[in-house]
Every structure is written in structure tokens, then in C-alpha cells.
């Protein structure tokens, strides 16, 4: 049960990543690979600040800001110098690798025996439910601290989903969605699409960095490699989410991205438990996203062929 709760917690943390990728991939229509760098960037900033004694909440906010800066850089390179968005992302991601090493000072920074957001919950839980309290949850015993952590992650992701939904319904958010949908039209209606893209990609990477920050605190270390494959991971979550809801309403899409992230994490955790070689994880994720991208078109075609016959 601890295993399940842990997986759902990580799933919820990675739902922030999924929301970030949702913005770049679904709103702006380009897979922003900056995410791989900014995920680690968020973790690196948090780890570096926490080990130097900064309040973990502040370290987390700084991670979000750092991610936004990374995203803004990608958006700026893309809009100002007219470099292909994917290439802009690759440039920033590559540059961030060095930046992350500098921020952390080494390739792996442990957070053991440090105050993090999650040690707070441990203490808080001890305070409220009594030290080391074990709760009986439908026949399984789990620690109260784990449950508090899960609840906290759920509330964080709920808050961000609602904020994002609200934002996308405001005047500026509507204009941002229109920028991805039809930039010619929205320019003719007086919107500076360059700023919209910079701001949107910044927002996306801020969320991704926040996911990195929280994951580092949850697992107790930041690693310079931890961002690798995160874009595809996020895409998988977004795609699963879309399959889950199969509707194009904005609120449902955001909810889908969150559910997709949790479900995908659960599937992976279960597969690993069943003995899947962890080394194959990225291969299988990539193959999964490939199939998810190709299958809908393929199925349409076979349907057509059947109709003709």
C-alpha cells in the first residue's frame, strides 16, 4: 500500500510536468524540449538552496521562477531570432545541462537530513496524528505522514489546475490560446503574439521546474540526469489524459492531463514491480508515445478501407 501511495504521490507531482507539457504541446502546438532541462533546473535550484539553508518553500518558489526564466529564454530565441521552436528548446536544454552542474556543484546533490517540504509534513503529521502513527486504510496500514504528503500533493495540483483553468478563461489567457490556434487572426486583433509565446513557454517551464523541485524534495536528491526523457513522459501523460476523457473541453483536458500523469506513473510502477527492466523504461515510454501518435490516424484509415469494401 505504501508503494501505491508513493506512486500516486509521484504521479501527482509529475502532473505538474504534465500541465506544463500540455501548455506547450497542446496550446502552442510544439513539443518544448526545454522541459528536460528546466525539470532538472528546478530540482537543482531547490537542492542547492535547501542545502545552503534556505527555507524549502522559498527554494521551491525560486525553482518555479528559474523554470520560467528558462522557458522565456526559449520563447525569446524562437520569436526574436526566428529559430525553429524545437531547435530553440534544444539549445536551451543543452545550455541548462552546464547551468545545472554549476548550480549543484556536482552531478548529484542529496537532500538527506535536510529540511524539505516533505519533512515538514512528517513533522506536521506527527504533531496532528501522533508520532509515527499508522492508519488502517481499508485493510492496509499506511503511515499518517504518507497520507498527509499525498493530500498535500493533491491540493497543490488541484490549486494549479484551477489557477490554470481560470487563467485560460481570462482575457489574456484566451488570447494566449488563440495565439496557438490561429496566430494570424490574433495578431490582426492586436495581440503581440511574440510576447504571448514567450509568456506561455515560460509558464509551461515554470510548472515543469516546480515538478522537478518537488520530486527532488520527495525522493531526497537532485540529479543532473533526472530530466532526461521528461518531455516524452509528459507527452505520454497528456495523451493518456486525452484518451481518458475524449472531449475537447478545456476543463476536461486539464483534468485529463492530471489524471493521465497519475495513471501513467501507476502503470510504470506496476510494470517495474512485475519485473520490467528499469533500463527499458525510456524505450517503452517512447514506443508508447509513438503508438499513441500514430494509432488514431491508422485506425481512421482502416475504417475507411472497411467502408469502401
Amino acid at each position, binding site marked *: 500500500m505504501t508503494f501505491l501511495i508513493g506512486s500516486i504521490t509521484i504521479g501527482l507531482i509529475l502532473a505538474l510536468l504534465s500541465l506544463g507539457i500540455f501548455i506547450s504541446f497542446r496550446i502552442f502546438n510544439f513539443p518544448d524540449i526545454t522541459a528536460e532541462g528546466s525539470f532538472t533546473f528546478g530540482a537543482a535550484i531547490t537542492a542547492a538552496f535547501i542545502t545552503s539553508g534556505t527555507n524549502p518553500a522559498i527554494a521551491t518558489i525560486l525553482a518555479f521562477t528559474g523554470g520560467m526564466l528558462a522557458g522565456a529564454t526559449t520563447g525569446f530565441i524562437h520569436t526574436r531570432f526566428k529559430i525553429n521552436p524545437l531547435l530553440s528548446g534544444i539549445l536551451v536544454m543543452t545550455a541548462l545541462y552546464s547551468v545545472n552542474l554549476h548550480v549543484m556543484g556536482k552531478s548529484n546533490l542529496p537532500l538527506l537530513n535536510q529540511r524539505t517540504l516533505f519533512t515538514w509534513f512528517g513533522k506536521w503529521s506527527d504533531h496532528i496524528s501522533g508520532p509515527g502513527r499508522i492508519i488502517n486504510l481499508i485493510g492496509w496500514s499506511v503511515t499518517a505522514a504518507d497520507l498527509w504528503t499525498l493530500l498535500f500533493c493533491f491540493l497543490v495540483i488541484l490549486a494549479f489546475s484551477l489557477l490554470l483553468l481560470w487563467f485560460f478563461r*481570462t482575457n489574456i489567457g*484566451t488570447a494566449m490560446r488563440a495565439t496557438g490556434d*490561429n496566430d494570424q*487572426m490574433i495578431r*490582426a486583433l492586436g495581440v503581440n503574439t511574440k510576447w504571448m509565446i514567450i509568456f506561455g513557454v515560460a509558464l509551461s517551464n515554470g510548472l515543469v521546474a516546480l515538478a522537478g523541485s518537488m520530486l527532488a524534495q520527495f525522493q531526497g536528491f537532485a540529479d543532473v540526469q533526472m530530466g532526461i526523457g521528461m518531455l516524452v513522459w509528459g507527452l505520454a501523460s497528456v495523451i493518456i489524459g486525452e484518451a481518458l476523457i475524449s472531449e475537447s473541453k478545456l476543463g476536461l483536458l486539464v483534468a485529463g492531463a492530471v489524471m493521465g500523469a497519475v495513471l501513467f506513473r501507476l502503470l510504470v510502477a506496476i510494470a517495474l514491480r512485475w519485473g520490467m527492466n528499469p533500463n527499458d523504461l525510456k524505450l517503452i515510454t517512447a514506443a508508447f508515445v509513438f503508438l499513441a501518435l500514430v494509432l488514431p490516424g491508422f485506425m481512421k484509415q482502416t475504417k475507411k478501407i472497411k467502408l469502401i469494401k
Partner: protein
Amino acid sequence: MLELSSLYKIFNTGSTNEVNALQDVNLSVEEGSFVCILGTNGSGKSTLLNAIAGNFFPDAGRVILDGKNITKWPEHKRACHIGRVFQNPFSGTAPGMSIGENLVLAAKRGKRRGLGWGLTAAMVRELKTRVKDLDMGLEDRLDTPIGKLSGGQRQALTLLMSSWLRPDLLLLDEHTAALDPTTAAKVIELTEKIVCGGNLTTLMVTHSMQQAVKLGDRIVMMHRGKIRYDFRGEEKKMMKVTDLLFLFEELRRKDQLDPGA
């Protein structure tokens, strides 16, 4: 109102495909005037409209709107003053967003967009009354993604959007060319209603000589990046389709005599 002076634009400079899209274009349009721009294919009509709207900057010349020199203004800044409808019915609306959201985007044309709620109840009420005026039964479908509508419906909505806030200048770029004749007629009818009703200063590029004869108070004919004829007042009123056809023939004949011109 609108003042173009010696506007030049060359595409593909220096290559064999060099096109003199605009050559010394001078045009002065008075407030409230409705100008039809006619021309052969590749004569520079759409380029002229794009130069005014700011899709690109001219190589030389000035664009002055309402006394302001907007030659170096980026497109989105000019949009405060200019409403546009494109030739492609899909260009003027965001397909993935609802009718209501598209309209609310237009209701903020050129204004500051902040964190205020987009589709407020008051806004929805206003949308409904104004969409009802289109008489297309769309007022009850404000939540429908605009991509599900037909080209004609989308073009009618784009027209409504471009004039939602009274533009100083309305640019219509062959906005009926992609529509079937019946739909085109409806959109033209709506155009007349909106332009005349609001007494809007309008430039309309068209391929249809019937439209040019029937609508507006001025006809400008372009050929090879230059304005070749300009009829207004009584002269415009007397114009018939046959006259225009004759003029086109004449331009073509002159070309054959002097291909370099």
C-alpha cells in the same frame, strides 16, 4: 484618413523571381469612403492591403492613418485602428475556440488584455444580441467550436468581429472569393450593412467586377504593382461591368505591346 505615399515593395530581391509587388503607390482615402480595389492576378492588391495592415514593412514610402505615421508600426499595434477580413475563411477565426470566445477576443481588439474574466454574463448578453443580427441562428450556439461552422458562417462572424469595435479602417481581402455564390451574396449583403451602417472607411479587394460596380463610392484598378485607374464620384456611379472589362483588356493590350512596362 488613409494616406499612402510612394509605397514600394519588392519580393525576392536580387533573384530571378524578383517581383515588384508595389511600385510607387500613392493613394489617399477620405473618411467614410468605401473603396473597391480591382486588379489582375498578382497585381499587388493583397500586397497593398498587407502593407497597410503591417504584415511586412514597405521597402520605401509612408503609410499614414488618421494623421499618424504608422509605417514602422508592427501589425498588432496597427490592429487598434484596423479591422481585417481575410480571403481564407479559416484565417479570421480560431477554429478550436468557441464562437463566444472568438467574439470576446474581437471585443478587445487593440485593447489591454488583463486578468479579467473573458466571457462575462454581460458580455454573453451583448454577444447574443449582436450575433442574432447576423440572422444565422448562431446566437444559441455560442459554445460551439468555430471550426465546426461552414466557411460562410465563419466569414460572416469574422466580418462581425472585425467591426465589433468601430475600426478607423476596415480591410476586406477578397473575403467572398472562397465562398459559393449564394453564400458570397449573403456575406456581401452583410458587408454592405456593416460598412454603410457604421459609415466605415473601407478598402475591399475583389475579383468580382459586379461587386466593384455595385458597392462603394470609388474603384481603384491595380496592375503590376501600380495603380492604373482611379474612379470616384459620378464617374464611379456611371461605371458598368463592361467598362471595367474593357479597361482590363486595354491593360493587357498595353502589356503585349510593351512587356517591360
